């Protein structure tokens, strides 16, 4: 068993050896397991349940464990009945207990804890800058879900150590890609942290030696870090596995006929302008117009970095209250539109394999004899994936072949999303943002009458100018949702 730990240290690049307490604790745990493969499984479910503090997950993991190892049920009992071991296990998972610090023992948490006054950038002393940066580092860690990230990294490292890993190359490359990406994020933060502490050391040194040049250089560097840290905070909001992907945004009108269809069209317009303002390329994939006004449903493709990361904040039901322009009695109406967002996985990701024989491809609006009898620029195609019932339509391309290709791409993304949701459930990770939208799931209300306001029901973020929001000014809502949802997640751990 000690050799197992050693291997982890080498391959996983994690500073396990720096903390004797942890290796002690893990050697206490690990020898109960039959082999290293088993141990990683056990740790995976055991740890996530400890960390998530969720009884549901806990019971789920018990059954996994019971299946995976006949030796460990006893061990697991002690794992969650004895809080001390639970805490130790957590530390084993994060392997980050050795906090970087300055020569006199000051850590990032220490800086925040000492409550130094944070002044404006221009007038601050080094303590003010350091406090601001340290605070940002805490925010970034929170947003990256630091503890979960460490656990996940640990599990991935264990997985990478398995000798039979490359028997399944698809799985292996997925694991190593995720490992690489998480390592990158982790290292970046650690480096930033270390940089801060180094500069503090430098300033202290400069003060001691009366080296004013060194002192001002380090002050400059701190100021630069302080400015960078704000960007890094934003970046950290979009650290999810698929956040950097392009995506589809789909809008569907709720019950209520023309009134709702008009609202759905307004919502779709809001996203089109939002996306264009952000510099994304927007293409209409599918659009089903309402009989009198608006749309029954529509799908647009939003191309660009982090399109999914931002747009996923919009998933749910949007509610409008206004005096209806379609009601001659000028009464107040409430309308609903549902929004779904589907990531378009990059070429590097694993796609669900689709069998040609599982597909039914139909001309969408056909009629008459067709062929040479008809001249039409309408070559809309509908593709049905028979086993799942997933359908996709595209009519906005200029050839049938391309309509088919676009519809096929939508089917692919929907199947990928379905698979992702399935896997997320298996991993007991939260799937909330991926679940199908039910009409009860209202996220935001837009009131045009009797007063004017847009309010997000999840964050209570509100704006008194609905017009600007409907013209695509959504970033305030999106960012506030992303930060609160991440903060909430971290608190739940």
């Amino acid at each position, binding site marked *: 068993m000690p050799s197992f730990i050693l291997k982890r240290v080498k391959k996983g690049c994690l500073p396990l050896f720096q903390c004797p307490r942890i290796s002690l604790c893990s050697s206490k745990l690990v020898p109960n397991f039959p082999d290293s493969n088993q141990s990683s499984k056990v740790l995976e479910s055991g740890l996530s349940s400890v960390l998530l503090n969720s009884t549901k997950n806990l019971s789920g993991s018990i059954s996994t464990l019971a299946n995976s190892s006949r030796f460990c049920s006893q061990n697991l009992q002690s794992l969650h009945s004895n809080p001390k071991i639970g805490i130790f296990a957590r530390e084993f998972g994060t392997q980050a207990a050795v906090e970087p610090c300055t020569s006199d023992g000051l850590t990032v948490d220490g800086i925040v804890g000492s409550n130094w006054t944070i002044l404006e950038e221009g007038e601050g002393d080094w303590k003010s800058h350091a406090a601001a940066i340290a605070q940002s580092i805490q925010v970034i860690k929170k947003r990256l879900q630091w503890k979960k990230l460490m656990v996940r990294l640990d599990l991935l490292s264990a997985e990478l150590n398995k000798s039979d890993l490359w028997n399944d190359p698809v799985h292996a490359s997925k694991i190593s890609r995720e490992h690489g990406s998480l390592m990158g994020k982790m290292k970046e933060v650690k480096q930033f942290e270390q940089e801060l502490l180094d500069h503090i050391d430098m300033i202290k040194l400069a003060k001691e030696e009366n080296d004013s040049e060194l002192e001002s250089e380090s002050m400059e560097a701190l100021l630069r870090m302080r400015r960078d840290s704000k960007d890094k905070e934003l970046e950290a909001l979009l650290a999810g596995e698929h956040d950097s992907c392009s995506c589809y945004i789909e809008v569907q009108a709720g019950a209520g006929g023309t009134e709702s269809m008009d609202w759905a069209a307004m919502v779709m317009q809001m996203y089109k302008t939002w996306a*264009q303002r952000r510099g994304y*390329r927007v293409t209409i994939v599918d659009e089903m*117009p309402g009989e009198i006004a608006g749309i029954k449903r529509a799908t647009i493709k939003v191309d660009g970095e982090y399109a999914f990361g931002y747009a996923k904040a919009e998933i749910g039901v949007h509610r409008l209250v206004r005096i209806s322009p379609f009601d001659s009695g000028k009464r107040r109406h409430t309308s609903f539109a549902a929004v779904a967002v589907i990531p378009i996985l990059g070429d590097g990701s694993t796609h669900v394999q689709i069998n040609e024989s599982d597909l039914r*491809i*139909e*001309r969408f609006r*056909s*009629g*008459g*004899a*067709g*062929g*040479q*009898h*008809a*001249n*039409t*620029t*309408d*070559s809309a*195609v509908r593709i049905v994936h028979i086993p799942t019932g997933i359908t996709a339509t595209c009519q*906005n*391309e*200029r*050839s*049938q*072949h*391309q309509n088919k290709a676009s519809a096929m791409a939508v089917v692919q993304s929907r199947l990928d999303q379905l698979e992702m949701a399935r896997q997320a459930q298996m991993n007991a990770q939260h799937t909330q943002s991926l679940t199908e939208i039910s009409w009860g799931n209202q996220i935001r209300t837009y009131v045009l009458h009797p007063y004017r306001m847009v309010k997000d029901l999840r964050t209570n973020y509100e704006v008194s100018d609905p017009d600007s929001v409907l013209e695509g000014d959504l970033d305030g809502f999106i960012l506030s949702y992303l930060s609160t949802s991440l903060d909430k997640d971290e608190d739940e751990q």
Partner: protein
Amino acid sequence: MMKLRLCSLHYGVRANIWRRPVSHYCSNSKSIISSSIEVKPKLPLYLRPPSFSTSLSELTKWHKWAKNLASSVGSSFVHLDNGPDSTLLQRELNWLLEDLLEVQHHSQILPLLKSGSNENADVAVALRVPLEDLYCAWRQRIEERRPFQYVVGCEHWRDLVLSVQEGVLIPRPETEIIIDLVEDVALKNNPKLAQGLWADLGTGSGAIAIATAKTLATRAHGRVIATDLSPVAVAVAAFNVQRYGLQDLIEVRKGSWFEPLKDVEGKLAGLLSNPPYIPSGDISGLQAEVGQHEPKLALDGGISGTNDLFHLIDGAASMLRPGGFFAFETNGEKQCKFLVDYIEKNKPDSFCNIKIVPDFAGIQRFVMGFHQ
């Protein structure tokens, strides 16, 4: 009045060398076809240089007018002869704008036009034809039912953008499936066919020939001969072949069906065709875009519509090499069954694996098979 004002506005610009093709763009060119022996293919709108300029407000004015004209149609054409409704015409209008403006300006100008706002009214917009020709072109689309593809001079077909003009059949979406049959049936069953010589008879715009040559080129060094009786079709097909740089792989020959193919008898690896198959009696009742604008030569298949199809089947037996593949488009279930019966009765030893394949609307559309 508006037209006069616009003409004078652009007088200086119009006097340049692009004036001549521009007048062709708007004129209904039936007369040109009959009078000219050597046909010069027309440049589709999207390939023309953006040498005309107008203000955004004038273009917006035209766009509003064109939108109104499109919505005034409602579903009247649908009831009349299964023609386009206003939703479809609106979409065509958007595509016309895409072809009209330079690609790099689409993202700025198209949203402004669609919102109809009065911002940036003075901004100059580069167009590929003068604004007054656009009024004329859209009127022809709606009032004369001139096919959209002739208006913009191109049809998007599979991943190709093919030039088309009066005198050439506009390739149909259904016909795209012939290429799927080549890829998924012919070349899958017999990969050697990819090295052989293929023929597309009655090629029209060259659609089948070009898509086939492209798919052959990804596998081996197959070549294609495309034939057509119509000089306009021959010229347009040759133009499209050149546009895709396939002149080394595709030879366009003028003549009726197998006549220009005497030198390759018994050597063809594949034989493809979308021949005229509409029964003569149905021609007068066709949708206006088809009946009044597309060439009868490419539509009328004789009393039962099967004259040319039978001729093709007869020829296929002697033109194809052993193992060679054929696929023909037909008018539907009835003609497909006729052809299969005919083959089974008269040529039972010539062909094998005869199959009928439906299009995406579920209509039995194609007959295909292999030479024994």
